[in-house]
């Protein structure tokens, strides 16, 4: 069913079945069909200005299984890693030996080097890197944070033109409602956006 540019009614017009069916029924059905095809919903956007840490509560729920976080920075005081902790009820999960991750970065032609690694020995997970000299971006896909089972995540990003990829997991079987992202040193100025992938 095609979309029809809505007509404009003026005072004194008599509503006809044809006008209603075209402008209201058909267009509404068309828009619903298009809306149902959207696979991802925007959940939150937050601007950060020289903040060391951002806590986002009540963003994970049973409505979605997987989420995408996009963190872009326009400036940062210090070169440093970004770390994530999952949280519930306003409390970070920071238990010993609960996060494992491995991120590799482009080192030279055809070669990748370690950016950060932990074999489930950490109290937070690394999700990226920021530099003081340029714009950076980190994309994190998180799978099942609101389910009471271990949570996995995958990462891709870049800093100063150097790309990196990786992933990690949090091995505690708790359903979380949010997360904290912290700069290991210095602070963050930029934007954090969170999206939910529709399950169907």
């Amino acid at each position: 069913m095609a979309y029809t540019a809505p007509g404009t009614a003026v005072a004194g017009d008599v509503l006809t079945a044809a006008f209603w069916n075209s402008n209201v029924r058909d267009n509404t059905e068309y828009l619903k069909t298009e809306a149902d095809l959207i696979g991802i919903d925007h959940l939150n956007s937050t601007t950060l200005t020289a903040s060391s840490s951002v806590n986002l509560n009540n963003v994970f729920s049973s409505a979605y299984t997987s989420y995408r976080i996009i963190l872009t920075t326009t400036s940062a005081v210090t070169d440093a890693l970004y770390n994530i902790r999952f949280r519930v009820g306003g409390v970070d999960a920071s238990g010993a030996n609960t996060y494992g991750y491995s991120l590799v970065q482009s080192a030279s032609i055809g070669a990748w080097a370690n950016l950060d690694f932990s074999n489930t020995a950490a109290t937070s997970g690394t999700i990226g890197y920021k530099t003081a000299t340029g714009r950076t971006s980190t994309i994190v896909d998180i799978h099942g944070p609101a389910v009471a089972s271990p949570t996995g995540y995958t990462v891709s990003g870049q800093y100063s033109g150097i790309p990196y990829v990786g992933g990690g997991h949090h091995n505690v079987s708790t359903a979380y409602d949010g997360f904290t992202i912290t700069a290991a040193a210095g602070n963050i100025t930029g934007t954090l956006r969170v999206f939910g992938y529709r399950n169907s």
Partner: protein
Amino acid sequence: MSDVVEIWADTGERVERDFTLAEQEQRAQDAKDREKAHAVEAKVRLDAIGHAKSLGFTDEMIVFMFPGLAEL
């Protein structure tokens, strides 16, 4: 400009505040843990380079063949 930005996505509430004492202690502990982890990682790399050299690899060969390993 604040240490922590705390947001409730369901209500839109946003609070900017300084670190709590507990958060400051956690950050200090995080820095110590990271330093320790990087020291372990550095030792693993140095051991790997040492092993490669014991097999006859030169510094130039290691840089060429294992650039990630040589980035110490």
